[in-house]
């Protein structure tokens, strides 16, 4: 066998160490993590409304700073129990996110409670009898005897303020219902009273500080934003419609799907490419030639070629010498096919056809003439001309061999 002896190949030499194989991936992961950290630290935080650390227009960082200036410490939290355990003020940025029960527990806690834009359900929970007043407009002036409000004086009232109707409850309605204060309870009619962009308005900051710190007597403020334990009817979630585990099952199934993809997408080895052979269409030159004739409308050339080919085949069939003119062929053939010599001569050597239809008719007429002469249709004739041709007569098989030897021996 000509093949060389097989060589043993140690896989160890071909397998690169793990750190080499994984280095590109590790470097990529590192770059992505670093990039994420960098972008995260540089970018403006998106910030939720009333976020105590957000410096955006709807954040509340400014108010927290002001409170700090008055010696109050603000503890942001999303945990309801932390808020209930606090001894100072609890500021609830989204009271509607909590259930009635949770609000009542908040209200029952010893600390002071500040609710921002509570709905009727929330107000009913903490201060039964207080409700939203759809007809109220609010007022720039305090119009009440609350010390904090009087200290703040006239304020720049936000446009979206929703006043409350205190009815006969033991509560003080200030600024036309925009701020309601009761012992250890303040209802603020607009979140804008706490936001960075509107805090600079006349009296707003003073009103806030007085309301939250109970005229600077309270130093601990718990800033409660709704978290996972907010079970209220607030912003409703699609998961409320499903049983408890559905949320976890959903994410678990997503993870299983990812595993499925990893399992199925892993190929057993790479694709092996095939070095393909060159392919040349056999009659491409002929076809190109024919199409050029067609585009140029070269009926004269085409007709001449067809006539010459037909004449040559007929000439061979009737055994005329090579180089016979169309007229000579016509004279020899006309009696065979029963047509007039002039007609055959026109077919074999007449003028070029005037249009494509006449060219087509000429081609068909030539075929008929050939058939009539005794030859088969042109396909068979071509097939015959494809057969072996020998340039020398003495190279033909069998019979010529004998002829030649006979001649030599003579």
């Amino acid at each position, binding site marked *: *066998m000509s*093949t060389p002896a*097989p060589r043993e*190949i*140690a*896989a160890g030499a071909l*397998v690169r160490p793990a750190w080499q194989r994984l280095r590109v991936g590790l470097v990529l992961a590192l770059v992505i993590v670093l990039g994420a950290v960098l972008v995260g630290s540089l970018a403006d935080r998106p910030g939720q409304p009333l976020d105590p650390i957000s410096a955006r227009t709807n954040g509340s960082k400014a108010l927290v700073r002001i409170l700090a200036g008055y010696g109050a410490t603000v503890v942001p939290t999303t945990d309801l129990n932390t808020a209930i355990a606090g001894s100072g003020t609890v500021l609830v940025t989204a009271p509607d996110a909590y259930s009635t029960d949770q609000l009542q527990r908040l209200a029952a806690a010893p600390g002071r409670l500040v609710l921002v834009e509570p709905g009727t359900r929330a107000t009913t929970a903490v201060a039964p009898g207080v409700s939203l007043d759809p007809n109220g407009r609010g007022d720039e002036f305090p119009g009440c005897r609350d010390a904090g409000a009087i200290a703040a004086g006239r304020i720049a009232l936000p446009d979206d303020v929703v006043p409350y109707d205190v009815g006969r409850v033991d509560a003080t309605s200030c600024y036309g219902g925009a701020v309601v204060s009761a012992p250890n309870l303040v209802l603020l009619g607009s979140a804008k009273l706490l936001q960075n962009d509107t805090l600079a308005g006349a009296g707003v900051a003073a009103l806030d500080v007085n309301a939250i710190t109970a005229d600077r007597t309270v130093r601990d403020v718990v800033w409660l934003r709704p978290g996972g334990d907010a079970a209220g009817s607030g912003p409703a979630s699609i998961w409320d419609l499903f049983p408890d*585990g559905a949320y*976890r*099952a959903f*994410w*678990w199934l997503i993870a*299983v799907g990812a*595993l*499925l993809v*990893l*399992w199925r997408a892993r190929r*057993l*080895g*790479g694709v*092996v490419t*095939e070095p393909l052979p*060159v392919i*040349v269409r*056999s*009659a491409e*030159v*002929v*076809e190109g*030639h*024919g199409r050029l*004739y*067609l585009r140029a409308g*070269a009926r004269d*050339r*085409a*007709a001449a*070629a*067809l006539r*010459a*080919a037909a004449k*040559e085949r007929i000439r061979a069939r009737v055994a005329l010498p090579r180089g016979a003119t169309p007229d000579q062929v016509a004279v020899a053939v006309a009696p065979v096919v029963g047509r007039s010599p002039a007609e055959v001569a026109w077919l074999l050597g007449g003028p070029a056809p005037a249009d494509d239809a006449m060219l087509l008719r000429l*081609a*068909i007429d030539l*075929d008929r003439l050939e058939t009539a002469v005794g030859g088969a*249709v*042109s396909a068979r004739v*071509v*097939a015959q*001309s*494809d*057969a*072996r*041709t020998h*340039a*020398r007569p*003495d190279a033909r098989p069998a019979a010529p*061999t004998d002829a030649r*030897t006979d001649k*030599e021996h003579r």
Partner: protein
Amino acid sequence: MVLTGRLVALAALGVLLAAWSTAAVLIFAAALIVSVGIDLALAGRIADLRIVRDVSAPVRLTERGETVLVIANTGRRVLLALARDAWVPSAGASPRSQDVVVRPGERRHVVTALVPTRRGERRAGRVTIRSHGPLGLAARQRQLDVPGTLQVLPAFASRRFLPEKLSRLRQIDGAVLVRQRGQGSEFDSLRAYVIGDDVRAIDWRATARSRDLVVRTWRPERDRQIVLAIDTGRSSAARLGDEPRLDAALDACLLLGALAARAGDRVALIAADISVRARLGLASGRDVLPRLVGALAPLEPALVETDPQLLAAEVLRQVSKRSLVVLFSALDTAADTGLLPAARVLAARHEVIVASATDPALARLAAARADAGDVYLAAAAELTSAKRAVVVEQLGALGAHVVQAPTEVFASHVADTYLDLKAAGRL
């Protein structure tokens, strides 16, 4: 790292735990991750493998060969693996992958059958080993370069003509040449006259010594030289039916080689386009066919315009004695490629056969009459045929023999021409 279906199935079961409790599903996920880690750690090391590839001897096209990977495990862990021995698609490798278990210190054979669909050198791709851990949750996977090639020889479809041609050769060898005293025929032996023998063959001296009439017999010349010159350029890439023109030429070469080997002639080979692609010195007897097959197998058409002068010069360099030169080329384009001058150079010193497989598409085009466009194509085809006829005539004037035949009988016709020349004592 590769994850398995078993892992995915287990993870899918975890959805029940997920629906039940957070803690349970977290523990389950951690358990899965730990199991995958353990499985990976316990999987057989691929770096500890030693692999030997053994490829079977050259096979003919569409016949079955095989390649064996001997995988030895020098590590300490059992290798439970899925092995894939990848080959180029035309090598027809099957099965695609196989399970293999190799215990430490043992070796196992992975046999892949190869049924090639293309001639030439079929190359192996890389070997992929996927080593599973004992739990079957995860696997390590590596690709290893274990080179190998399978030589795929031409199909030699014209073998079916061989018995007929050989019987003709035997006729020439015996009966026919009894009646022939052509130049160059070698004296073979004396034998008794039988009715039908040429009376001119009677050897009167020998007859005088014996009591019967004795005739001389001749046999055709032996030890003649045949040079197969193959054009592997652009025209040889043309598809005649399914296969390129080159394949028809190779088929004819093999038949001619087999015949010449039996006739006692010596055969040389040159294949060239703008450079020499294959060259084989004169060989005779049993050597001829295997050597010819080996030299022809890797030949592929190249998209370049052949230089016939180069081919002629190489032939002249190869043989000095008067020989038979069989030039496999294309006549359709011969008018443009300088085949004639090359044939003239060769014909001056050698007996030349110019062989060209004809294009069935040309006949089809010439016969089409569906619309005017067809007629223009037919005219172009007729012009090409006429040009070819002129080339054939010119070749004839140079003393060359021209063989044109459709691919199915091309080899047979080339062999016939060789036998005719041999019978005529022209070699």
